[in-house]
């Protein structure tokens, strides 16, 4: 008997992580003869996502996977599915605790940990260079308002003073997950601050944007650290221009979500918080990782 699984994603096409996720999800589903999927995308709009939840409920799918646009706003919609007896699996970024009773499982990376690991990468490098007591850094965060952006910034900002108490974060501005925007932000930072030693970016796309700005301005020796390693970031690391990032595979993310849904439907026991590991990647250990496909 086939399982009908519906998924409503956050915003496909906004960056290649989400696009690769979608492809991987569809591939994984079609590889499994027992699974049929309805793949929807909310385009970043909560209202549209709630409508898609309602539609999926109305179409009587067997399970729903949701990549929340807003971890709280979707709770009532999740409750509707729960009331209709449809199990809900949250993917990539979690919903708020109030909604936990209505979902079966969360599957995805731990963004807070990612942020704090990025802080550690940065700090370790500064210690190597012996500037851990004077370094100044700037942060370029993701799209304002998005859980992922908020959590990665929070993880970083909380962890940094613990490991490197004397490093100062002089300014944070959003780069909207956008390489171009990030490049502009970095250009202004470079004009404004003469002594930038490090840049932390919410993902490598933005990190590379900042790197481009620094290269154009002829500023060398800045340490760039991202979270979520993209192909561009990996290449920049190969060239020795970019220090490190967090390795996170959208393929793992998608496959984990689908597998969790299948497990739930087959009556298996699944842990409620189903984090997959996202290790540190730096120029030192990058040989252990394959180049990301996105």
């Amino acid at each position, binding site marked *: 008997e086939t399982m009908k699984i519906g998924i409503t994603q956050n915003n496909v096409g906004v960056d*290649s992580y989400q696009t690769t996720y979608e492809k991987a999800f569809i591939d994984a589903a079609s590889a499994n003869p027992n699974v049929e999927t309805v793949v929807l995308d909310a385009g970043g709009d909560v209202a549209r996502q709630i409508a898609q939840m309602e539609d999926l409920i109305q179409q009587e799918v067997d399970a729903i996977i949701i990549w929340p646009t807003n971890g709280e706003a979707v709770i009532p919609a999740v409750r509707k599915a729960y009331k209709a007896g449809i199990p809900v699996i949250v993917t990539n970024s979690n919903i708020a605790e109030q909604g936990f009773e209505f979902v079966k499982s969360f599957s995805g990376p731990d963004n807070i940990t990612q942020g704090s690991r990025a802080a550690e990468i940065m700090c370790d490098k500064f210690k190597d260079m012996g500037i851990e007591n004077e370094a100044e850094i700037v942060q370029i965060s993701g799209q304002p308002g998005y859980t992922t952006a908020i959590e990665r910034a929070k993880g970083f900002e909380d962890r940094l003073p613990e490991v490197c108490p004397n490093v100062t974060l002089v300014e944070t*501005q959003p780069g909207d997950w*956008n390489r*171009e925007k990030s*490049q502009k932000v970095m250009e*202004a*930072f470079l004009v404004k601050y003469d002594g930038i030693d490090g840049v932390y970016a919410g993902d490598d796309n933005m990190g590379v944007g900042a790197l481009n700005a620094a290269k154009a301005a002829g500023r060398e020796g800045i340490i760039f650290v991202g979270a979520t390693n993209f*192909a561009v970031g990996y290449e920049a690391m190969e060239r020795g221009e970019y220090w490190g990032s967090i390795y996170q595979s959208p393929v793992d993310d998608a496959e984990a979500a689908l597998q969790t849904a299948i497990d739930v439907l087959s009556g298996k026991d699944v842990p409620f918080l189903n984090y997959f590991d996202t290790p540190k990647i730096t120029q030192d250990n990058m040989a252990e990782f394959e180049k990301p496909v996105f």
Partner: protein
Amino acid sequence: MRPSNLSGVGTFLAKQGILVAFALFMIGFTIANERFLDPDNIMGVIRSSAILGVMALGVTFVVISGNLDLSVGSMMSFATIVVLDLHDKIGPTLAIPSMYAMVLCLGALIGFLVGYLKLNSLIVTLGMLSAIHGLTLTYSGGKNMDIADKEGTWFSVFGQSDALGIPVPILIFALLASVLGLALAKTPFGRKVYAVGGNGTAATFSGIRRARVVFTCYLASAFCVGTAGLLQASRSLGSQNTVGQGLELEVLAAVILGGASLLGGSGTIFKTVIGVLILGFIQNGLLLVGLQFYAQYVVTWIIIILAVWLDIAAKRGKLWSPIA
């Protein structure tokens, strides 16, 4: 009629309110942060405004002809993605003309729909905004597009190199602005653009082929968008599918800030350039002052309204609107 005397300064202010506003902002920012007037910074702002600026040049034509173009942002993403993709497939020399050809086809399609079929330009270009985004995603499979060999290509000249000590994007922007500015102000075609936007019916009655004029304006817009995509691609040698997203409104804001009326028939390339620079310097100035991005939003709001208000108040000679 006996002419009544208006002082030269008064007339100048009335005509160039926007320039005065521009000067005021520059002074304000310089007081707030002395690095603002640093030549490197100024060059940097103009260089990063060049992409928006090039797009705004084309949109100026469209707006003066009485139409809108909301598709420029997503068309710019398309151009960037296409030229990057083709760069690795057929080499930069062929990639550039191929990209222009594709973008001009899209421009021609819009021009056909708005000019010849007389469909409402707001909806047509809004539709194209969405459709071209879909096209880009289909083309790229939703992935980032990057040039494989970033060091070994001459393709970076457009976005990254200098000539005569000036960054090439600025030169291209300046060149295009001069050519298009002359075309608009001095050629028969430019005159027709104003006529069609000022009163399309009367223009038709004067033997102007309105559809053809509108069509050509969209081609001009597409050409500018292609150029912007080229600059963008060359600047970063890699891009997301959403690189131009949201630029349509910024472009429109710049054009309007320059004093073009959305009803058509008025505006100039020179003023659009001023509009572009104002936006660029506001953004940069606020970043330098160190405001949170959301405080920047609020300040931009106030500045846009003040600038336009100053401009029209100078024109009508009264601060407050005479509307009852």
